[in-house]
C-alpha cells in the first residue's frame, strides 16, 4: 500500500477498486485508500481532500 501511495504518478490499481480513495484537491495525488470512508476522513478530514470510489476498468457498469 505504501508504495502505491508514495508514487503519486501511479494510477489506480486493483488495490484501489471497490475501496474509498482520498485524493489531493487537484486529484493528482493519491493520499491513501481504505474500505472504510470514515477511516480516511479521520486521517485527512473533509476539507482540502477529494474522496472517490474508482471504477474497476475490468468491469462493465450500467449507469
Amino acid at each position, binding site marked *: 500500500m505504501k508504495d502505491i501511495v508514495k508514487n503519486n504518478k501511479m*494510477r*489506480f490499481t486493483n488495490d484501489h477498486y*471497490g475501496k*474509498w*480513495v482520498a*485524493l489531493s*484537491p*487537484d*486529484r*493528482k*495525488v*493519491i493520499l491513501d485508500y481504505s474500505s*472504510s*470512508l*470514515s477511516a480516511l*476522513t479521520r486521517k485527512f478530514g*473533509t*476539507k482540502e*481532500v*477529494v*474522496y*472517490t*470510489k*474508482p*471504477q*474497476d*476498468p475490468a468491469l462493465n*457498469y*450500467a*449507469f
Partner: protein
Amino acid sequence: MLKVEFPYCKFNPDFLGCNCDEPCLLVTLKEGGKEITVEAMVDSGCTVTHANSALAGELGIDLRICIPTKTIGISGEMEEAWMTEITFSLPGLGDDFRGPVLFTKNLPVSILLGQKNFFDTFDVHFQKSKHLFTLTRVDA
C-alpha cells in the same frame, strides 16, 4: 448565464479518479455544518441522485430518520434506500442548491447525479466527440 465545461475524465490524464470515458466532476455535499467533496458522475438514467450510504455518515445524517424507500438497478433487484435532502455545491455554477438524495449501501461509486434534481438545476450538454460536457445553470 452560468456555464462551465468539464472534460470527460478519460481524456484528462492529469486527473486521477474515474478510469473510464465518463462525465465526472467534483461536487461538495453539505448538511448540518458538515461537508465532503467527492468525485461525482452525471447520470441521466438515474431518476433521483443516488449516493453511497457511507457519505450519509460523514454528513451526520441518521438513515433511521430518513424516508425508507427502494431502488432498482440494472439487475432488476430491489435494494433498500433512504431518502433525504442535502445541499450541493459546484464551484463556478452559482449558489448552493438543495436537492433530494437517495442513500444506498451498495452503490459502487460515490454518487450519481440524477434527474431529480441535478438535471432540474442544470442543462447538461454531452459532447463526447469533443471529450467534454457542459453544465448550464437553469435557475440563475
